[in-house]
Structure formats: structure tokens, C-alpha cells
């Protein structure tokens, strides 16, 4: 099976937000980057699928050339190659145009199954996987916590507010991965060495216009200062009083 794992390079989750002087973009100085948390789960599921059903795994990303580092790291876990679509407008790229760019490439690659993280932990869109599948006319199951494939079809479980949904789908498909689907492996030394010899293509793509216009970016207003109402169980009465009479939430 021709399997693709789509990843995104994002700031590490301990990054502190600062706004640039233009008032509408993030000051990224001092940021460190990583593969988005859920995309690691996507890479793992792609490799597991290859191990179970045969085929090849390609790691695909849209982003700055520096993202070759994250692609290489994912290849080291057991993928067969990578493609980075280098994006001069990366900071402005919106979910619609990202999905169109990825759909075009997936189609060109002859992919049959693509794994995405359920959400990238920078813009928190929760959208690109399902958008890409829609553009391709493929099935898409989002937030998957359990997956099984056989004979060109699949079943999956996904978590919703009301419980766990059982889903059936046809291939080709895009699966967006949630925590719990698997436990991502670490790359061993052998994998890291092997990854250096595996193909990593840096490619251009035909630009697709963005629709999003950021008017301003702000830091959330600081919360009003709170107070310690007391120590130990004796403070419970003061807390109840504050919640009832001051905050009026009880």
C-alpha cells in the first residue's frame, strides 16, 4: 500500500507567545520546533500499517526548509522517504490552501492511505485532514483511537462527547489520529543512520491563494488577581462563601 504520513513543524508546547510590532504576527524568536504531537501518532500508525500490510511510507509536509529536520526524524522511525513542499508564505498559510496543496501532492504520489494528526498544536485548526480528503473525494475518519484495515475497507473508533463511535469506511482514506491510537516509537541509532540515505525531496508547489486575513493578534487579557483563601480544610468555609457570594457560581 502507498501510505503517506502528513506532519507539521510547530513550536514546542512550552513556547511562550509574543506578538511582533506589526500587531498581527507571532514573534517566533527563541521558539524551538518539533513535529506536532498528534502527527507523531500519525507517523507511528503509518509505519505500523506498513508493517502489517506491506507497502511504503512517505512523510509529507508543507513548511519552511528547516522542516527537513522533522521529516528526517520521522523517516528515522521507519518511513521510506520524505517530501517537503517548501513554502515561502508558511506563516500565512491557511487551512484551505494547505489542504489543496496536500491534496494535489497526494494525488500525484498515488497515495492510497494518508495519516494526519487530528490537530496541529500551533494554529489548532482541526481541519486540514478532513479538508484534504474532501478535496480528493476520499473517505476521512477523524480523531481515531482504534483502526483496522482489510480488503480495501476499514473500521475505526473515534471519541465524541457522547461516547465512542464505531465507523466503517472505504479506501482511499485519510485518517486523523488521536492520542490512544498507538504509542509512538523512538528512532534507534540504526534508523537514524539509515534515514540519512533515504530520499528526501525538497519540492516547490503551485501557489494557492490564502483567504485568511489576520487583523490583529493579541495576548489574552491577564486574569484579575486572585487570592489564597486559607490553608487546609479549615479554609473550605471561606472558599464556599467566596464561590457563593462573590463569584456567584454555586
Amino acid at each position, binding site marked *: 500500500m502507498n501510505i503517506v504520513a502528513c506532519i507539521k513543524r510547530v513550536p514546542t508546547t512550552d513556547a511562550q507567545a509574543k506578538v511582533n510590532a506589526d500587531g498581527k504576527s507571532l514573534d517566533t524568536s527563541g521558539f524551538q520546533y518539533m513535529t506536532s504531537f498528534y502527527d507523531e501518532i500519525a507517523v507511528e500508525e503509518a509505519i505500523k500499517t506498513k508493517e502489517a500490510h506491506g507497502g511504503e511510507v512517505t512523510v509529507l509536509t508543507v513548511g519552511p526548509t528547516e522542516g527537513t529536520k522533522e521529516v528526517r526524524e520521522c523517516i528515522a522511525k521507519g518511513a521510506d522517504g520524505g517530501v517537503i513542499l517548501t513554502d515561502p508564505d508558511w506563516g500565512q498559510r491557511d*487551512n484551505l490552501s494547505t489542504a489543496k496543496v496536500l491534496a494535489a501532492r497526494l494525488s500525484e504520489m498515488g497515495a492510497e492511505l494518508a495519516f494526519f494528526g487530528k490537530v496541529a498544536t500551533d494554529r*489548532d485548526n482541526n481541519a*486540514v485532514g478532513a479538508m484534504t480528503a474532501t478535496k480528493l473525494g476520499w473517505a476521512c475518519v477523524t480523531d481515531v483511537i482504534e483502526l483496522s484495515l482489510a480488503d480495501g475497507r476499514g473500521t475505526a473508533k473515534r471519541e465524541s462527547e457522547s461516547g465512542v463511535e464505531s465507523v466503517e469506511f472505504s479506501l482511499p482514506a485519510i485518517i486523523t489520529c488521536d492520542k490512544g491510537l498507538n504509542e509512538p516509537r523512538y528512532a534507534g541509532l540504526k534508523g537514524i543512520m539509515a534515514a540519512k540515505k533515504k530520499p528526501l525531496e525538497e519540492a516547490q508547489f503551485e501557489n494557492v491563494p490564502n483567504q485568511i486575513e489576520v*487583523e490583529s493578534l493579541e495576548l*489574552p487579557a491577564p486574569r484579575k488577581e*486572585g487570592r489564597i483563601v486559607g*490553608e487546609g480544610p479549615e479554609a473550605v468555609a471561606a472558599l464556599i462563601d467566596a*464561590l457563593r457570594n462573590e463569584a456567584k457560581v454555586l
Partner: protein
Amino acid sequence: MSTILVFAEHGAGTVRRASLECIAAAKATGSDVVAIVTGQGATDAAESLGNHGASRVVCLTGADQYSPDATGVDIAAVACDLGVRGFLAAATSTGKDLAPRVAMHLDSVLFSDCTGLEAAGDSFKISRPWLAGKAIANCTSTGPVFCATTRLNSFATNEVGGTAEVSERPASTDGKVIVTGITAKEGGKLDVAEAPIVVSGGRGLKEPEGFKIIEDLAEALGNTAVGASRAVVDAGWRPHSEQVGQTGKVVSPGLYIAVGISGAIQHIAGMKTSGVIVAINKDPDAPIFKLADYGIVGDAFEVVPALTAAVKELMATA
């Protein structure tokens, strides 16, 4: 007047609160609101939708099982037929799954998890979190239809007392993805993102059994979900569905009680827009106290049972 189409979720005819919030958010922009519903009981749902602000309700009928891709096609077709200026859904699991499909059919960017929505000329403006709320982006779109999902507990519901004109439309039945069943949560437990009150526990509870005091407090408060920090989810004490934070759920309940949670930046990102924050922690220097409206320094195993007892007493006299 511009028209906004809102996907309304319901369970057996009872509309989800998150969808009523979404309709109220749409209505507050001064737009005409058309709701679209699907599944068993769709026509029962139509009545309360009118009361909450929809002038028309389109019921997709005839599909025995829910298919997100088929529903996406149907909604996009209705959006085109009506010439709507906007499409909204609540940012529930179903809404987040469906909205990107609709947005792509409409060739429009999607704004997910919006916390603010207002009219701007003949279009709209939204506010939404980036980096799990470490920054707030105020955005517009040049796309043909303004597509967005609204964050749960971020907009008030509104009863306007209207009646909606109801029409039916056959649902597409050629979906590539079919939801064949659902295993409901035990005892109708509330989801952490949806609940008006959340009580969360962390490492300070020492062991999985330590969560008993959290569950007891949640039960005493009523209408309350149990949340958890990443550390205890990674340790396997609690399911990921309860995790609050940057790699879990971002929640905004009216009251958030953090017990034995130090307040790592990734956790804070997931709960800092809560209405009132209470922290109970042994360590007076825990970062969570900087964020909390009210704090108690003390041993969770002494403070929480006392709080539970006090809440029970209060509920009994209320």
C-alpha cells in the same frame, strides 16, 4: 440581511446546548439564521431551534445512519441553494469533523473553535485562540462563505420565543464513511469540554485511586465533569478523553477546580479562559495559584473531602 446556516446537533430530538450557543452567536450578528438538522428526531429538534433564534429549519431525512461526508455534501448544497453568507457549527467532536468538509465544498477557509464572532460589513470577524490560547487572533476572510466552529461555553444561549418554518430534504445516502454505532459513556457522564463545571486532578493525587475524591466532589456538585492533567493521563491513571491542556481538550467552564495540579504552561493553556478558577495544592509556590481566583494551600486528601461535605450540605439546604 445576510443569512447564516447553522448545523444543529441533537440527541433523539433534544438539541445540544453547544448548538444553541452557536445559533445564538449567529443571531447576535444580526443575521437571519437557518438551522440544518439530520438523523432520527430531527423534526422534533426543529421546535426548540425556532425558540432559540432560527427562522427556518431544514431537516435532512431518510438516512438511517450518520455519514459525515454525505452530510457535508448536503449542507454545502443547502448553503448554495440559500446563498448563505456564513456557515457555523459548534466545535464539538461531530462539528469539528463536519465543518472542514463543508468548508472545502464551499471553497472557503475554516475558522475553528472561535470565541468571538461579529458582523463586519457584509461579512464577519472572528476571534480564535492560537497555540491553545496563548494568543488570540482576530481574523476575517476573503472566502466566498464565512465558515467557523464556535467553542463550547463561549457564547450564551438565547430564547427569543420564535417559531421556525420547517422543511425537509432527502439526505444523501452514498457516504464513504458511516457511523455504525456508539457506545455511550457510563451513567451519562458529561464531557469535560461541555460541562459547566470541571474538577481536575493531577499528580498530587498520588495514585489512580486518589481520583475517588475528585469523582466524589464532581458528583456532589452535579453537572460536573472530571478532568485530568497530562501527567496522570500519560501515566495511565485516567483516559485521554479527560485530559485538559494543549494536547488534550481546551475547556472553558463556569467553574474550574484544579486539585494537585501544579499548573504547567501546557495545562494552563487548556483552562485559563474558565469563568472562575479554584486551585487546591500543597505547594504554595505552585504556578496554578498565580492564575486561580481562589486558592487553598493544603493536602488534597484533607481539603477536598471537606469541600465535598460542604457542597453536599449546601445542596441539601438550597
